[in-house]
């Protein structure tokens, strides 16, 4: 853990140095040195512009992702438990899992307009299918001997679900949630760039088209940080819910 952390720091530091040196040597507006990006980042932060946009983006992300987790787990569980539901839905889920979600943006504009609902819908669609598929797989792969054991001790269907199926499938569900989180961040930025220019997506478009590369990179780095922090957050929840599994993996 510690050596991993120090290697991570080393990796970031060497990239930062390389970037700074390259920026200064090339002396091009296209690759500003890191120090200049940092200055631009600080300016955006202290003016309040970055935070207000970020708050708006994160609200969309939270709403869309929450819906995706909720509906993704419910649908995934139903598909994993009932073969009829699986066969009824798996065609669409599999198709939509790998379809480019950006193609649906015009449809969403028609349905939901240009407001926040559309952006939430994009985040939702980006994230939900990978959660459904992982949940379904997890539920289907629960060792039948556990179910048999529970039944033998007199468990009812409800108890079998909450005491056996759900905890046994939790590692797979959380894997889906983790992947869904990454996709949700992509959905958030996509929606803000393609739908209505709001949030940090709008800042990217604005600075990109006006060649303000230092501010542009500052926003991009902010998005990377958001992606990393949200991922850590999901990992933290995962660890709390399925710590038993991680222990096994370490051995």
């Amino acid at each position, binding site marked *: 853990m510690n050596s991993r952390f120090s290697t991570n720091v080393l990796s970031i530091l060497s990239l930062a140095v390389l970037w700074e040196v390259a920026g200064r040597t090339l002396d091009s507006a296209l690759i500003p040195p890191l120090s200049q990006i940092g200055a631009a980042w600080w300016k955006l932060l202290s003016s309040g512009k970055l935070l207000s946009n970020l708050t708006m983006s994160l609200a969309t992300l939270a709403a869309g992702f929450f819906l995706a987790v909720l509906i993704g787990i419910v649908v995934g569980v139903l598909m994993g438990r009932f073969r009829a539901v699986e066969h009824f839905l798996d065609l669409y889920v599999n198709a939509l899992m790998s379809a480019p979600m950006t193609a649906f943006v015009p449809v969403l504009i028609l349905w939901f307009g240009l407001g926040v609902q559309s952006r939430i819908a994009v985040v939702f669609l980006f994230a939900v299918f990978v959660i459904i598929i992982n949940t379904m797989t997890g539920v289907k792969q629960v060792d039948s001997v556990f179910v048999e054991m529970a*039944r033998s001790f*007199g468990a009812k269907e409800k108890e079998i679900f909450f005491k*056996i199926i759900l905890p*046994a499938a939790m590692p797979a569900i959380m894997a889906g949630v983790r992947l869904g989180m990454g996709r949700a961040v992509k959905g958030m930025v996509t929606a803000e760039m393609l739908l209505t220019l709001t949030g940090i997506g709008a800042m990217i478009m604005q600075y990109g088209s006006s060649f303000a590369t230092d501010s542009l990179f500052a926003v991009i780095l902010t998005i990377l940080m958001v992606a990393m922090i949200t991922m850590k957050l999901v990992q933290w929840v995962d660890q709390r819910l399925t710590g*038993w599994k991680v222990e096994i993996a370490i*051995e």
Partner: protein
Amino acid sequence: MIEIQGISKSFQKTVKNNSTELRALANVSLSIRENEFVSIIGPSGCGKTTLLKIIDGLIPCDSGGISINGKHVSAPGPDRAVVFQTFALLPWRTVLANVEFSLELRRLPKEERERTAREYLKRVGLADFENHYPHELSGGMQQRAGLARALAVNPMILLMDEPFGSVDAQTRQLLQEELLELWQRERKTVIFVTHSMDEAVYLSDRVVVMTPRPGKVAEVLDVPLPRPRLPDEVRRDPKFVDLTNYIWDSLKKAMENHHE
């Protein structure tokens, strides 16, 4: 008293749209007395496990029936508990929580659950391991936890499905001795499925020899060895040696007849 009357069971086996009927059990009858230790031995696939599951009420039979003290069995009940070959311990629960599982389903309050679970963990020698997870224990210890979980609900009948089949030979002998001690103290009816002739004779009052698929009762043998049985003495007893040899011959005969 357990009455097994004319049990038959078939499974549909489907391979590439070809459905074939697989006869697991054919007309199995047997009666087992209270507090009796009965082993069921037979070649792989003779339906021993299927028979155990039918007695537990986990799967229905096609014809015939089971009754316990005159009451017909159609579903799992509080008078029976199973010890599984693969232990079936829940990996996300500690040993204590695993033993509590069977008690949770009986809706006992938390305090009573913990007290009972600890008591049975002590009896199987796992008192110091209640906070361990199953994967941190050896196979033998995992099965002790499985046994504690079954005993904790205080069943009349213990159904054991090759419980010591996946532990090493030394541990297996230890577990056999411990099981006999527990059985002598707690006085339960035990139906014990096994592959091992030695194990069947050492543990049982009677040994049921089954034929290959479809499983039928080939022979029911009394074990004329006095109890308590000291493991080393018993195994040197000529009656022990004769009986294991006899069972081996009986199994061979059953398998030869099957091939003809």
